[in-house]
């Protein structure tokens, strides 16, 4: 027994030694390195940067047959019209090295002042989305602490200001972009006329924005001439952008990538073939029972996925599959995660507390060489309440065009062909009475990035 343990410890030590010796500065950064670390010896003490996104969206969905609209048929985050201009993101940040002579300690701050799920509900003027420090003292094990993006799905982890589409995929928006239950059970809000008589957002808190407060261990390693491996493990509160925890449970995140580098591009546009996988697990404390009592319970929330991303010579292709168990969010107007008989009863069909979901997408794009134009296309599917009587399948095809005025300013046009179907109900019945009318959407968005 002792011999077996010694051998295991020896193997772990040798593996760690080999990995550490193989590690070196990565040629160019991946998302783990881009967000929260600075280039050694050559970073500013303070670099102020930011970006603005201004958009217009128009939704062509039909009202419910009985009248009224539900959020998927309206423009986020206010859910009060089918067409709107919006300053959906306006962020200002500062990043750099704490001391110019010591590159080992980096910091990253970011403040959101746009109108989106982070600042709505509540109409916050501004909300801190990132406040972290990274310690690069241990070779092979950098440490990042504070509020920052947890390592996970590609759409969530990547920087939003270089995202090639206006809206997230269904799976990302519904399964990954977390909403946190209210302190007490909150009943569903019925479909509303336009203008709405009451807000269709029943949540007290804003979205989690793919972020958490915690500590992350991570690093990137060069292997051979052109391969790069990266890993991350994080433990956090599991309470989104809130600085404190609302329970004693913690959320765990694991992430790994292997990328074949092609040598071209840099930063977010670095060319390579990247394989990635991620996993997250935690518990959420929520009162989801309609019984006039404050009796919260702990519910498991598990998410995982795998994917691949390719970028070379102007061509881009991505595919990702995601799966979730527990705390499957339904919609802003269903703040206690239940529809139908599941409303107020976590154990009934139609409640997301113990439900499953899965989704996937494939997307691609081509930047025409020597021009400022790019074409993009994406197909995504999301099966919400998978296997449940109230399962709904969401589908969308997005066609996009981007024009780059310069590397930092671009305009994007998206047209989305959207549909949703409650697979166990005939047309117009059950949830189809509401989701059956979900239809196409047009979007235009200007993104401007600036930096010192």
């Amino acid at each position, binding site marked *: 027994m002792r011999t077996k343990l010694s051998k295991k410890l020896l193997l772990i030590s040798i593996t760690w030694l080999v990995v550490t010796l193989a590690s070196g*500065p990565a*040629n160019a950064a991946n998302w783990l390195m881009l967000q929260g670390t600075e*280039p*050694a*010896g*050559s970073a*500013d003490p303070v670099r102020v940067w930011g970006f603005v996104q201004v958009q217009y969206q128009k939704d062509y969905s039909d009202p419910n047959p009985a009248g009224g609209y539900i959020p998927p048929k309206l423009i986020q985050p206010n859910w009060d019209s089918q067409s709107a201009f919006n300053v959906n993101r306006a962020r200002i940040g500062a990043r750099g090295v704490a001391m*110019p*002579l010591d*590159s080992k300690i980096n910091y990253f701050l970011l403040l959101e002042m746009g109108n989106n799920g982070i600042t709505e509900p509540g109409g916050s003027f501004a909300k801190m989305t990132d406040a972290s420090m990274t310690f690069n003292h241990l070779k092979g094990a950098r440490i990042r602490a504070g509020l920052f993006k947890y390592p996970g799905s590609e759409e969530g982890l990547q920087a939003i200001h270089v995202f090639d589409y206006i809206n997230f995929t269904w799976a990302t928006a519904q399964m990954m972009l977390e909403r946190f239950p209210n302190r007490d059970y909150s009943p569903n809000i019925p479909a509303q006329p336009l203008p709405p008589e009451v807000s269709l957002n029943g949540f007290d808190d804003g979205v989690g924005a793919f972020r958490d407060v915690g500590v992350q261990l991570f690093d990137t390693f060069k292997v051979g001439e052109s391969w790069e491996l990266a890993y991350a493990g994080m433990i956090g509160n599991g309470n989104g952008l809130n600085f404190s925890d609302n329970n004693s449970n913690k959320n765990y995140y694991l992430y790994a990538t292997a990328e074949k580098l092609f040598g071209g591009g840099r930063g977010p546009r670095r060319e390579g073939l990247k394989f990635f996988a991620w996993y997250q697990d935690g518990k959420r404390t929520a009162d989801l029972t309609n019984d006039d009592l404050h009796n919260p319970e702990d519910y498991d929330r598990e998410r995982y996925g795998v994917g691949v991303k390719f970028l070379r010579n102007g061509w881009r292709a991505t595919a990702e599959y995601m799966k979730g168990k527990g705390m499957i969010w339904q919609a802003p107007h269903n703040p206690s995660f239940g529809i139908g008989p599941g409303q107020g009863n976590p154990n009934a069909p139609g409640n997301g507390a113990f439900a499953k979901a899965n989704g996937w997408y494939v997307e691609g794009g081509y930047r025409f060489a020597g021009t400022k134009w790019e074409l993009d296309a994406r197909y995504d599917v999301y099966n919400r309440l998978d296997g449940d009587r109230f399962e709904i399948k969401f589908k969308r095809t997005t066609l996009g065009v981007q024009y780059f005025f310069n590397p930092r300013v671009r305009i994007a046009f998206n047209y989305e062909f959207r549909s949703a179907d409650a697979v166990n109900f005939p047309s117009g019945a059950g949830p189809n009475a509401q989701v059956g009318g979900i239809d196409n959407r047009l979007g235009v968005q200007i993104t401007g990035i600036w930096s010192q």
Partner: protein
Amino acid sequence: MKKRVRVYLLCGLAALLAALVTPASMAQEEKPFAEQKFVLQISDMDPDKQTLVLNVASNIIKYYGPDKADVEIVAFGPGLRLLFAENSNAGRIDGLTQSGVRFAACGNTIAKMTQTLGNEPPLNEHSTVVPGGIVRIKDLTDQGFLLVKP
């Protein structure tokens, strides 16, 4: 015979000592056929300046050829960060060194940084410590090097 051997040994030792203690004279010995001589100064903290000075060195070598151009980059003050061992431009410095570019690190700045940090900052293996960056620049300009501060 013994006297001849002793003379040869002494000459060899003298040559070795000269090589070690006279960096100023190394400039001409390193590139004996160089027609164009440049000393590039970096004394700024700005990371863009780091990139710029390396780009200028690279462009000079590319235009004139590694044998026809003698280039030395002198780093002092906040610019010494370029020659930190961990600097993200280490790969470029390595490549330029192979083309004959030299890198001089100011000893006065190192002493000051050591005082601030509590330990001497590790330097890039290709850098040569000179007593003073400004003095090194003066020596090189006296030898006909053109001073360029990108």
